[in-house]
């Protein structure tokens, strides 16, 4: 059962990701990005990481992609002014490099030893919450400074006159 679900959601995630990078219209890409993010959230549930699956849907699919859609509609580039994609040497080499990276990781992943077994409940709300507020408390608090910096930076950059 787990294998079937893994293949199903893995295939959805990969197909969605391919569509994200191949669509011409940014809006179509954003919608396929949501599809991929939901499929990855399902994979998190398969690994018993319920907290991260919920966060993935709320933060990523909810906040980040909505921000993207917002900006796409705000700047609203007309169809004929979207950049024309051409296959230059640099681009083709970049795609080949990415393909090589995937192959290399496939070889490495087979050699890398990890105990196979049922998912341990380390990604549940309780487990992650306990870890965040004990062992990783400092990192968690510093995260809030990062978000504050991002908020101030985003406002300072996007505002016409400060």
């Amino acid at each position, binding site marked *: 059962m787990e294998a079937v679900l893994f293949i199903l959601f893995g295939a959805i995630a990969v197909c969605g*990701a391919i569509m994200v990078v191949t669509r011409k219209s940014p809006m179509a890409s954003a919608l396929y990005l949501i599809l991929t993010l939901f499929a990855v959230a399902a994979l998190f549930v398969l*690994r018993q990481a319920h907290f991260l699956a919920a966060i993935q849907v709320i933060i990523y699919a909810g906040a980040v992609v909505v921000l993207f859609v917002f900006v796409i509609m705000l700047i609203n580039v007309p169809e004929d002014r979207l950049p024309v994609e051409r296959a230059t040497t640099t681009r083709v080499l970049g795609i080949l490099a990415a393909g090589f990276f995937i192959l290399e990781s496939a070889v490495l992943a087979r050699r890398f030893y*990890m105990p196979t077994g049922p998912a341990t409940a*380390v990604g549940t709300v309780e487990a992650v919450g306990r870890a965040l507020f004990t062992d990783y408390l400092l990192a968690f608090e510093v995260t809030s400074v990062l978000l504050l910096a991002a908020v101030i930076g985003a406002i300072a950059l996007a505002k016409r006159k400060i």
Partner: protein
Amino acid sequence: MIAPSAYLLLSAILFGIGVVGVVARKNILIILMSVELMLNGVNVAFVAAGSYLGDTAGGVFAFMVMTVAAAEAAVGLALLIALYRLKETIDITELRVLKW
């Protein structure tokens, strides 16, 4: 039962597709979305490794990656808006002020 390597491979594929989007596309919006894809691919590896090894660090790191991704999207899109106001383009090849 799924082998851990299957998750690592899926993570590498998502990351690789993200890399293709970053190097091969000209549309800045799609490049930013590809960066999100890359970060998501890394998260798959973190969560899978955490749950197979029985370590909460995997989940916590994935959480931090998500925070960074949200911050990056906010700042990146703000930059894009400022840029579009100035240059009226979202083509990355037309932005070469710092290129000699």
